[in-house]
C-alpha cells in the first residue's frame, strides 16, 4: 500500500518538473521538439511518399473510366461514319437512278430488290412494289445500265421479276453495230446467249447488244450487254453468241419498272 502511494507521488513529482521545464525554458522545449521531430522524420517521409504514391494512383481509376468513355465514343463515331458511307453510297445510287429516270421516255416506278430466287436453276428477284404502286404484269424492268427483266408475277405489295439470265426468259435483241437480230435466252450461271444468229452474220466479241423492240414487252434500243464469245452449235444452222449483261444482275439493289 505504502509502495503504491510512493510510486504515484514520484510520478507526480516527475510530471510537475517536466511541466515546469516546458513552461520556463524555451531552449529545452525547442530542443526537445527538434529532437522528437528528427526522430519521427523518416517515418513522416515514408508516410509522405506513400501518400504521394496513393495520390498518383487514385486518378488512374478515373482516367481508366475516361479512357473507356472515349473509346466508346470513338466506336460510336466510327459506326456513324460507316452508316454515313452507306447512306452516301445509297444516295449516289438513287441520284443516278433519278437522273436516268429523267433521260428515258417512259413512266417508271423505282423499286428495291428485297429477295432473290432460292434455287440455282432460276434467276429472278422479288421487288418491294406491286399493284398498289401501279406495277403491271409483263412490263419491262430496267436498271441504270440496261435491261434487267420483266415482271412476271404481281402481288399487292411486291412482285417477282424474271431476269434476262433465267433459262425461261426470251428477249428479241439486235447487235447494235449491224442490226442483226436473234433471241436472247438466259443461262443459270448468270450469262445469256443469243440464239438463231444466221451463219453469214459477222457478230464479234465486244459487240453491244440492244433490245429489238419486238413483241411490245421490252422497249426498243435498250442496252442489254456485250458479246463475250461467238460459236456454232454442232448440227444446227445457226450461230450463237454468249452475252455478258451490262448490269451485274447478282448485285442489283434498285430497279426501275416501266408502268
Amino acid at each position, binding site marked *: 500500500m505504502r509502495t503504491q502511494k510512493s510510486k504515484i507521488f514520484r510520478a507526480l513529482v516527475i510530471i510537475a518538473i517536466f511541466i515546469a521545464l516546458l513552461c520556463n525554458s524555451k531552449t529545452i522545449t525547442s530542443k526537445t521538439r527538434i529532437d522528437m521531430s528528427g526522430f519521427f522524420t523518416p517515418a513522416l517521409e515514408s508516410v509522405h511518399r506513400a501518400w504521394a504514391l496513393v495520390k498518383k494512383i487514385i486518378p488512374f481509376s478515373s482516367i481508366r473510366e475516361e479512357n473507356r468513355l472515349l473509346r466508346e465514343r470513338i466506336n460510336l463515331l466510327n459506326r456513324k461514319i460507316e452508316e454515313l458511307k452507306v447512306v452516301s453510297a445509297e444516295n449516289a445510287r438513287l441520284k443516278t437512278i433519278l437522273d436516268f429516270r429523267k433521260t428515258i421516255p417512259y413512266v417508271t416506278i423505282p423499286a428495291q430488290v428485297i*429477295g432473290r*430466287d432460292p434455287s*440455282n436453276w432460276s434467276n429472278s428477284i422479288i421487288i418491294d412494289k406491286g399493284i398498289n404502286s401501279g406495277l403491271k404484269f409483263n412490263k419491262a424492268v430496267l436498271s441504270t445500265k440496261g435491261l434487267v427483266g420483266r415482271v412476271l408475277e404481281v402481288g399487292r405489295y411486291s412482285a*417477282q421479276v424474271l431476269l434476262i439470265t433465267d433459262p425461261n426468259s426470251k428477249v428479241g435483241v439486235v447487235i447494235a453495230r449491224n442490226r442483226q437480230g436473234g433471241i436472247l435466252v438466259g443461262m*443459270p450461271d448468270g*450469262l445469256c*446467249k443469243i440464239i438463231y444468229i444466221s451463219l453469214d452474220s459477222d457478230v464479234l466479241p465486244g459487240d453491244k447488244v440492244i433490245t429489238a423492240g419486238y413483241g411490245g414487252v421490252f422497249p426498243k434500243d435498250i442496252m442489254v450487254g456485250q458479246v463475250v464469245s461467238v460459236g456454232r*452449235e454442232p448440227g444446227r444452222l445457226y450461230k450463237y453468241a454468249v452475252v455478258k449483261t451490262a448490269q451485274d444482275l447478282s448485285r442489283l439493289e434498285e430497279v426501275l419498272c416501266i408502268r
Partner: protein
Amino acid sequence: MYKISRLQIYIIILIAISMQIGPLNYLKIFGMKPDVVLISVVFFGLLLGPGAGLEAGIAAGLLKDIFTLDFFWINTFIMALAGLCVGMASDKFFKESKKAVFTVVLFTTILSMSAHYFLVYIFSKNFALNYFSYFLSSVMPACIYTGLVSIPLYIAFVNIYNLKEADDYI
C-alpha cells in the same frame, strides 16, 4: 423417337430458305450458290429416315416453289423425291463419315439439278439450253460448292442435336 421435333424441322427449313433468298446470293461462286435447302432435306432423310426426308422435302420444295418463277410443282416434286430416296438409302451409309455425307450431298445435287433440267425440258416450250453446257457451267460448280458447304453444316447439325448414338438417328 426423333431427337428433333417436327417443329424444329420446319424452323430449320425456314431458316435455310431465308438464307437462300438473302445472304447466300452474295456468296456465289461461278454464278452458283450452295443449296442449303437441299442440304437440310438430305440431312433429314439421312438421319431421320425416308418419312422425315419426304416430309422435309415437300415442305422445302413448296417454299422454294413459292419464291421461284419456275413450274410451281417442280421443286416440291424434286425435293420430296430427294428426301425420300436419301432416307431409303440411309442405312447403306456410314452416317458419321463426313466423306459419305459429302458424297451423298454431291450426288443428290447432281441428280436433282439434272432432274430439274429434264423436267423443264419436257414441259417447257422452246427450251434452248444444252444439257452438256448446263452440266459444266452450273451443275458441276453447284454440286461441289454444296457438297463442301454440307460438311461444316453436318458437323454443326450433329453437335447441336447431340446425335451420337445409332438410336438417335432413327
